[in-house]
């Protein structure tokens, strides 16, 4: 299920109102599954040893939904429109 937890992790990276409280990276052997050797945007989960915990740090509810479009699966997170925070991401490769 790390494919889905990674999708959640990536959403928490781009949504400035979601914070990752706890995350475990994949080991080198699995890292390749998560693409392009990008550092830090995957999330491994395994029983209680490797967990992914996210938190809403805004003062508003955050709506999250999985949707399928044209055979692809997306995870949306939606917050009431605000302009006080944006995320800037850059790629760091190993």
């Amino acid at each position, binding site marked *: 299920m790390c*494919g889905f937890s990674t999708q959640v992790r*990536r959403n928490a990276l*781009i949504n400035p109102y979601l914070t990752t409280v706890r995350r475990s990276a994949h080991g080198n052997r699995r890292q390749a599954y998560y693409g392009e050797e990008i550092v830090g945007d995957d999330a491994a989960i395994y029983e209680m040893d490797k967990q992914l915990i996210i938190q*809403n740090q805004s003062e508003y509810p955050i*709506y999250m939904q999985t949707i399928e479009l044209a055979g692809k*699966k997306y995870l949306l997170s939606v917050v009431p429109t605000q302009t006080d925070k944006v*995320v*800037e*991401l850059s790629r760091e490769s190993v």
Partner: protein
Amino acid sequence: MYTGVESSLTAQMRSDMDLVTPYIQDFDEVYDVNVEDKTYRGSAIQWTSADLSQSMIWTPMRSRDDQVYMNQIIKDHLLNQTIQSTIARYTWYVSDRYIDNYGACSRQNFMRAFDEFGVMILEPSQTLNINNLLA
């Protein structure tokens, strides 16, 4: 049926999403569109309407086709005033799984996790443990 007590804002959000989501899911074609109203921040993309009233931040590390695809969805929906005004009240953050890759887990497990997640509303300061969710 929803259970529990929700704030008015949460209830409004749920109602709005119920309205908008079917329109998004109905769209199934890809067009090439003008991307002049997008601004780029690092490798992420923020879609912003000309009057700055609407925006969507798009995940990095995706193909240009996918960027165009979602922007076209929004543009089409802007033709509908009700949908337009609903979309404008929110900022949307979208992530997909790695294209053509289910990660280290099986496709079956991914599909189950994806389906079981469904819809979730996180209230302010609420945490979500994905392990518990998918146990």
